[in-house]
């Protein structure tokens, strides 16, 4: 299976204990956002910016929740100060679901530079990440949860176009 239903992905996230969702939408993630919104009012929190979503996720983690933040990779730029001066120094874990626009240099012009640089940015600041593959999601989720529990840092899944429907 190389494509996963967004609703199934949301169920897997819930199975792994994630229970606080915030973000800024992207076309690649629209199915995930609508599945979350179907769960009820305020189940998914529409943030005004990606760093604001990360701030909320931090506050929720401090209050005992397991947070997920959804964003387009352009939002990584907006998020860098939150990640480097909040999550990475206070050791606040969070699962980042990041859509990978501009992958392979094929996309609208505004996505090309970040599409090329986004995983290097994650490596530079020290955020572990994996590509989102439906076939290995079970193992990858187990890995992500373990890293978040042991190292207490954010972990990212990079989601390319076409793997979620």
């Amino acid at each position, binding site marked *: 299976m190389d494509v996963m239903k967004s609703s199934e992905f949301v169920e897997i996230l819930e199975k792994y204990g994630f229970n606080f969702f*915030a973000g800024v939408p992207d076309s690649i993630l629209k199915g995930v956002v609508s599945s979350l919104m179907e769960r009820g009012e305020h189940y998914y929190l529409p943030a*005004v910016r990606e760093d*604001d979503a990360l701030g909320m996720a931090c506050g*929720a983690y401090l209050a005992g929740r397991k947070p997920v933040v959804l964003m387009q990779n352009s939002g990584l730029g907006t998020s860098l100060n939150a990640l480097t001066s909040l999550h990475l120094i206070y*050791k606040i874990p969070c699962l980042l679901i990041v859509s990978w626009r501009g992958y392979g240099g094929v996309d609208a012009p505004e996505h090309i530079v970040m599409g090329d640089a986004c995983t290097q940015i994650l490596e530079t600041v020290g955020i572990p990440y994996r590509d989102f593959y439906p076939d290995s999601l079970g193992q990858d989720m187990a890995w992500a949860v373990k890293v978040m529990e042991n190292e207490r840092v954010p972990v990212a899944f990079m989601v390319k176009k076409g793997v979620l429907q």
Partner: protein
Amino acid sequence: MKRQEAVETVLRLLDHELAIHCNGMVSREAFHTLDRPENFYMIGSMGLTASIGLGTALARPDRKVVIFDGDGNVLMNLGTLAEVGALKPANFFHMCFDNGVYGSTGNQPTLARMVDLALIARSAGYRIVKTTDTKTVLEKTVRELLQERGPIFLLVKIVPEAEYETAGRVTLSPEQIRDRFMKAVGRVG
């Protein structure tokens, strides 16, 4: 009213309320004036005080969350006010200590001198919005507002001060701040 006086006045009225303190001088004054486990000191991530408080408030609707924000911080992420106004958490009490300057970087002026942050909070949909500039009124107002349903926005006008007059850095490590606060959230309050 000086910032230290204002911050101390509010902190003395708190019981087990959770408090998120913005980076810069507000965190420093709070830490050196009345440190408590329920205080979360933000040392970086400028602009995210209300976002952090909102996450805590939504995750724990049974706990009151008081935000000790500054005008520079609020201006950096005005969109968060819209989020609070839209989601309307009843346990959210947002205070903004407004001295019209960026205090920890040399008192450069902020736009709060020309823009009414209380009016913006009102437009954004906060349930109660008030402004105060004296210690006596601040004490009375906070005492009353702690009994009210939020979201509440209280603009506290304070005077700018020279940096040598104000408190030193927060000496707890970020992880110590996190652990204490998480324990305090877990306790019934």
